């Protein structure tokens, strides 16, 4: 089969330890200048200035290879999958399923069938709430989350609690935005049926100690769902090493297309779960009396999925693996240190989220300036940040602020971007003085 449209080098189909080691080798140093060339949007002028894109936690920009893969896929290989007895359908199915295998390797999952394609992290969490949750959670049971969750890891559980009579418990954090593990452990009781927790906080950047959390939860026989939306663009993830039971992420934050996301689930759990949505492809046979459901993962992918989105996500993951997650993490860590130092030197700035272990997220408030006004001034300088509650209102209350400004980094950001940010903050302070 011709897979040239995926722009695969021959070795990429089987990512062995050796090739990964090669990529990490110092012979290919991390070259941010070259990487920026891969992202056409970074050459964009905004309000007469070169774009400084610091809103990566909301959504990340796309490298040319992802854009080209989508175009090439639609131009040469598109048809519905798993259905046609024709050549094009087989070709599309092959591309779709090879992306699934690609993501399995990316997450370190044991089986490709443990990878379910969904619309995004939100749908992944809703899927678990509505299938695993509906069958395992009953009145009086408890679901344990943390204060730093995004609304998408709060509301699906509230809905489940309302439907079942279960209770949502919330593990607290300290003033730096770190989970209080002792308090978390105390909240694990015989009534706890599930832990749902962010790998990385979208507001604070805090990296939660997932391995330790899973260990504690498993000691009480409680499965753990990890919201990985803010982790996968920055950190190497190995779901088997973490031993988490579910892991969810979105393609669009991982330099891939919108409308595609992934739910990883341990095979034994997925196989025992009822379907999520009814429709085509998720069944083995249908009569009006009885329907036999398909195997995993097909049972959870009713209807025609986002085929091109899956193929595009596969290309994004290839692109990231080529650069190397370790190199990305190391570069971003250095840039975060620079940015934290630079921004916290501004007397009027208060950083929200100062965990020891964090990714490149700077949430802050500037004395006397509402985050929205700051956002407008920065936008006028060509700098894209987010201002608002970041879909984490309970966390905003925890820190006693209605909103924050948030600059979030990706591996294509530079020290020049940080300098532009700092200069624009100074300008805003002058402006509103």
């Amino acid at each position, binding site marked *: 089969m011709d897979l040239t449209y995926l722009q695969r080098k021959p070795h990429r189909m089987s990512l062995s330890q050796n090739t990964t080691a090669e990529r990490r080798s110092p012979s290919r140093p991390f070259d941010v200048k070259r990487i920026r060339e891969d992202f056409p949007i970074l050459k964009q002028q905004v*309000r007469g200035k070169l774009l400084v894109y610091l809103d990566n936690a909301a959504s990340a920009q796309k490298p040319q290879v992802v854009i080209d893969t989508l175009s090439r896929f639609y131009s040469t290989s598109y048809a519905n999958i798993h259905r046609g007895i024709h050549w094009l359908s087989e070709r599309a199915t092959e591309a779709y399923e090879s992306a699934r295998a690609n993501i399995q390797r990316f997450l370190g999952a044991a089986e490709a069938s443990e990878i379910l394609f969904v619309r995004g992290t939100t749908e992944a969490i809703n899927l678990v709430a509505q299938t695993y949750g509906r069958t395992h959670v009953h009145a009086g049971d408890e679901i344990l989350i943390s204060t730093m969750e995004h609304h998408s890891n709060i509301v699906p559980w509230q*809905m489940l609690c309302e439907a079942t009579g279960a209770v949502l418990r919330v593990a607290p954090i300290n003033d730096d935005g770190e989970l209080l593990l002792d308090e978390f452990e105390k909240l694990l009781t015989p009534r706890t049926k599930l832990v749902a927790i962010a790998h990385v906080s979208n507001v604070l950047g805090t990296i939660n100690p997932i391995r330790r959390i899973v260990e504690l939860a498993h000691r009480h026989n409680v499965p753990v769902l990890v919201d990985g939306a803010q982790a996968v663009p920055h950190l190497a993830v190995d779901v088997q090493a973490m031993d988490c039971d579910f892991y969810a992420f979105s393609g669009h934050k991982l330099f891939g297309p919108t409308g595609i996301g992934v739910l990883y689930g341990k095979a034994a759990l997925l196989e025992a779960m009822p379907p999520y949505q009814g429709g085509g492809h998720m069944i083995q046979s249908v009569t009006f009396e009885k329907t036999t459901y398909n195997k995993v993962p097909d049972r959870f992918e009713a209807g025609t999925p986002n085929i091109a989105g899956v193929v595009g996500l596969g290309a994004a993951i290839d692109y990231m693996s080529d650069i190397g997650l370790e190199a990305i993490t190391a570069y971003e860590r250095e840039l975060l240190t620079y940015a934290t130092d630079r921004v916290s030197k501004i007397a009027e700035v208060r950083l929200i989220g100062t965990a020891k272990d964090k990714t490149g997220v700077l949430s802050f408030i500037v004395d006397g300036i*509402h985050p929205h*006004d700051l956002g407008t*001034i920065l936008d*006028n300088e060509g700098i894209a940040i987010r*201002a*608002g509650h970041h879909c984490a209102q309970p966390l*905003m209350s925890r820190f006693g602020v209605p909103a924050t400004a948030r600059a979030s980094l990706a591996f294509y950001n530079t020290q020049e971007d940080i300098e532009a940010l700092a200069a624009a903050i100074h300008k805003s302070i002058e402006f*509103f003085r």
Partner: protein
Amino acid sequence: MTLDVRELYREALLDHNRKPRNFRKLEGANRTAEGYNPLCGDKIKVYLRIENDRVSDIGFEGSGCAISIASASMMTESVKGKSFAEVQALFERFHHLVTQAPSAPPDAGTVGKLAVFAGVREFPVRVKCATLPWHTLRAAIESRPELVTTESGPASQPALPPSDAPATSDLQRHIIEALRTVYDPEIPVNLYDLGLIYDILVEPSGAATIRMTLTAPACPIADMLLWQVDKTVRAVPGVTDVTVNLVWDPPWNRGMMSESAKIQLGLT
């Protein structure tokens, strides 16, 4: 194109943000309303002292961005002493000022000092910041007079509704009942209780005008819902003609739902 933020943040606006006028809880207020923009977290509470259908005094409290605080502050100065009709007319002119196409010539003469908000129209995401205080003011005017007195117990009898909000007629009630049978297929609560119907005007001839919104501007079934509203209202005995106006201002929010809708959706 370079936009000068100075056009948005004029000096007068910055001054009202630094030193908001009438920023206080008004003693002797007889109407209040709270406005909230869930997108940015801006919160405004407007206090009114109404005498003879006039705003005899006004105060506000709240937190928000410079645009919303300055807008509230300048609004309080602009409406003091004005009749409901004058306030409504001023709001309409102000609304036009901040929402008209950027290329349209500024129409500043009629809004007085509020003309400093003309720059807002270049920043569409900030329009709601400027209009939030005005929507809150309108809600306060239309609210049930709530007697802030030293006497205990609830205000016994609502006073007459404001002159521009006529009492509900029998025909309006029948239209409401009919609208309670129309549903967005994705939401198990009817359009009326969801708060999507902003008002129902019925002329003596029986011609009905429905002003309504939808939960999201990109609602994929908008056409179908509008058609259904038209058809349903047209079928009400006594209705001779129907006009359905789809509006996006004020934007719908959960607070507009009836209590029963909130209970039904588990939001209480």
